[in-house]
């Protein structure tokens, strides 16, 4: 039996890098230090596995070999007048770079899954900047942690233990020396851990943030409550934030995808910016997939834009709403969708999935997903971070190395190898 130490978890944006994976005869038999989600991923890689490339013939998916699947993919991309390359949340940075090259060569549109999660965060920070820090800094220094519109206990299970209120830092140790605030529309398991839980009405986040900001800026509010929250309670929270030595705000889709979207994030950034006039405060988005942050990073260094990049006119153009994959699919404007590291048929709204019936679909995925079942070409790839190495970015923007701990099933290549074959033929 071989034990791999300090393995990076390829599940959520926390990218926990202290996993111990026990492997016997190329089979993972145990995973230590991981949460239930991460452990589940390592131990279930053999389930629902896509083992052979598939090509649709007369409406039925039939097995084929890799060369033919690649050839068919290249032909479809070359014949496409507006291909969309989408996904990347569960792909390595190296694979994302190759996909951007494909989008550039084929005059397509490249977009990552942040368009349906933290896209508004990106739009907000482009307007306002973001006062941020690494998770390590927060672990060692933060004495106030605010979770807004997120539920890490269920979605990022080790966040509170490794970086949040339960973590033990160098200067601030343990739960007793930190205060924890949760702001959400319902009492989540995370909220039950909090010192202060502020329940807000759905879609009232912008008003609450604006009121908090006004209080931090010593403005008098002319109302007694803001969307059902008494001003006295907001004053208490504002005082708690101002009096913190080092505060950290973590926010999730409850903020990015509720009424106001990017304006909520702008208001949150402005609040943190104003708090920094009085104390030290930082903020970090709770990114979902393990490398969606990496997708934004690679997109930015390759094209200048973090998502929604359109190469159709020969140079990168960016206008979320116009050049975002979801809107393009919803308007029925693309004729080919190339998906890697995502499962849009499970995650996108039904009316958009309906649109996929009218476009050619190429999917690179390790397992048989609903998207694979709709595909015209499906190519199996290795699980990045388990069967293939690569680079991923943690939610705070720190790059980390994904490790290979077992070999993929026979005949299955990493996504980088498959993409390299496609790119070579496209050239």
């Amino acid at each position, binding site marked *: 039996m071989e034990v791999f130490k300090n393995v990076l978890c390829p599940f959520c944006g926390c990218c926990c890098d202290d996993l111990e994976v026990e492997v016997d005869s190329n089979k993972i038999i145990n995973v230590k230090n991981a949460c239930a989600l991460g452990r589940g991923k390592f131990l279930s890689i053999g389930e629902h596995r896509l083992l052979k490339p598939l090509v649709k013939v007369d409406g039925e998916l039939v097995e084929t070999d890799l060369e033919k699947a690649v050839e068919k993919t290249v032909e479809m991309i070359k014949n496409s007048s507006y291909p969309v390359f989408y996904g990347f949340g569960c792909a390595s940075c190296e694979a994302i770079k190759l996909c951007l090259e494909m989008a550039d060569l084929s005059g397509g549109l490249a977009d990552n899954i942040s368009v349906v999660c933290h896209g508004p965060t990106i*739009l907000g920070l482009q307007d306002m900047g973001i006062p941020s820090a690494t998770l390590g800094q927060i672990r060692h220094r933060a004495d106030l942690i605010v979770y807004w519109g997120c539920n890490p206990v269920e979605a990022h299970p080790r966040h509170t233990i490794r970086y949040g209120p339960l973590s033990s830092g160098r200067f601030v140790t343990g739960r007793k020396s930190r205060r924890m605030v949760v702001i959400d529309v319902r009492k989540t398991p995370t909220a039950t851990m909090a010192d202060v839980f502020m329940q807000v009405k759905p879609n009232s986040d912008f008003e609450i943030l604006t009121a908090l900001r006004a209080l931090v800026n010593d403005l008098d509010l002319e109302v007694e409550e803001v*969307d059902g929250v008494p001003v006295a309670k907001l004053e208490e929270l504002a005082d708690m934030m101002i009096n913190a030595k080092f505060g950290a705000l973590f926010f999730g889709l409850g903020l990015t995808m509720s009424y106001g979207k990017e*304006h909520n994030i702008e208001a949150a950034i402005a609040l943190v910016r104003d708090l920094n006039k009085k104390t030290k405060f930082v903020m970090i988005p709770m990114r979902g997939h393990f490398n969606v942050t990496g997708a934004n990073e690679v997109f930015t260094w390759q094209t200048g834009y973090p998502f929604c990049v359109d190469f159709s006119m020969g140079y990168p153009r960016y206008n979320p709403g116009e050049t975002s994959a979801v809107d393009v699919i919803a308007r029925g404007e693309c004729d080919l969708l190339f998906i890697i590291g995502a499962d849009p048929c499970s995650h996108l709204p039904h009316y958009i999935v309906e649109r996929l019936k009218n476009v050619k679909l190429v999917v690179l995925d390790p397992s048989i997903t609903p998207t694979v079942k709709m595909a015209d070409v499906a190519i199996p790839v290795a699980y990045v971070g388990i069967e293939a190495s690569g680079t991923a970015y943690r939610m705070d923007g720190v790059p980390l190395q994904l490790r290979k701990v077992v070999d993929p099933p026979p005949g299955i290549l990493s996504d980088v190898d498959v993409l390299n074959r496609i790119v070579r033929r496209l050239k």
Partner: protein
Amino acid sequence: MKIYQITPAYDFKLPIVADIAKPELFEEKQLSEVLNVEVYEGNRRKRFGELFKVKEAGEAEETTLEFIGDFSKVRRIGRRMSRGIIRVKGTAGIAFGEAMKGGRIIIEGLAGPWLGAKMRGGSIEVYGDAEGFLGGAYRGENIGMRGGSIVVHGKAGWNVGYKMKNGLIVVESDIGGFPGVHMSGGTVYVKGGCGRGAGAFMKNGRIIILGYIPSILASFSFEEIRASIRVEAERLKGRFYTFVGDLSEKGSGRLFVNADSNRHLSFYEQLIEEL
């Protein structure tokens, strides 16, 4: 000057970028040359004449382009136009009249998002509804509309007047949330109601809402009740709650809200009594 009628050669499915389609092009080039100008359909370069049927349809005082049909897939028509008239009888696509400097655009139908984005002069009139970012800026840019006027006789979407610096936007029916967000000048005048977040981050300018507004942001301060407001040549009479903001941005913009349509805001009148 000539009138040109332009119709789609077929039903478009892919996005088309036709930013060269403006009156100046038709004044400066022969029709045969115009038909050979390249535009993009998806990632393919095509001739203007392959995508559109163009015919001369009489004389007018100014060069007039009449777009007849569904142009919802065609983007940036009238970009940077400075003179002449564009009339749409049908649906206008994304960013129609982007950064226009002069001339007139009349849309008899629906208009897509970013209508009159970054506009500097001229006028746009829509006899139908318009989508979001009316007269707004693009994402990541600092300034939206800088001059001219947009009148929408129907509804409009979110973020009307996004980052607007000058000019006038009039919407005769309801609009979505966040009108005048990041506004630094100009006037947004809405005869219907609006969603939440009016005037967020605004530094200057005026927003007038005659219909229902769900709430006023806490960073706005009640100033007074006015009996009338002037918008261009028109004087609006009634009772208008006047708010100043966004104070968190050290802004001094004005938000005027019709008192009769917003009885739920009547508690602000107590502030007057207290003062």
